């Protein structure tokens, strides 16, 4: 089962690397933010898998919760900042 966790963590790392292409070449600012948000949410699962791989899931779960809350707060704050009328995009 440890082998399975290792392989699934490797596959998940490759999947996490895919939205980086959208971060680099995204046409608008919002595309980049969306791809960053997707990377942050998938990293939650990766940290859980690493905890099972090391056999210390009781410690890694707290790291996961802190990471999830920080990512969510960051995304919400950036969205609220971009919503304000001073940062509108001119067409």
């Amino acid at each position: 089962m440890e082998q399975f966790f290792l392989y699934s963590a490797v596959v998940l790392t490759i999947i996490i690397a895919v939205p980086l292409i959208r971060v680099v070449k995204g046409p608008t600012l919002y595309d980049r933010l969306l791809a960053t948000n997707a990377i942050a949410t998938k990293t939650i699962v990766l940290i859980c898998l690493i905890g099972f791989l090391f056999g210390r899931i009781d410690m890694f779960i707290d790291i996961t919760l802190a990471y999830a809350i920080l990512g969510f707060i960051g995304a919400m704050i950036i969205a609220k900042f971009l919503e304000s009328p001073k940062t509108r995009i001119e067409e």
Partner: protein
Amino acid sequence: MSEIQTIVSIIFIVAGILLMFAGSVGILRLPDFYARTHSVSKSDTIGIIFVIFGLIIYEGFTHSSLKLFLIIMFVVLSNPIGSHALGKAALKSGLKPLLHHDKNLKKDEEVQQ
């Protein structure tokens, strides 16, 4: 009992990883920002639920599995809210959605900001 537990958890984890792969490909291939929010919010949330539910089944009924369930509840609440807030910010700040009846469909590279 333990073998059945392992097999069921492997099935759940593989299904979740496939769903997350679909979400990643959707970010690359969909044509518009609002279509990409669709891919990020839905398939990623379902994929995370599946993988962590598989980990809960593998762990059994312990203290840690309750915390994993709390992570599922938090992701279910937070991931669609984050995508919705980004979409609302983009709509309010004047990003036009790509409509079907637009004759001159703009390519991705022409919308450079």
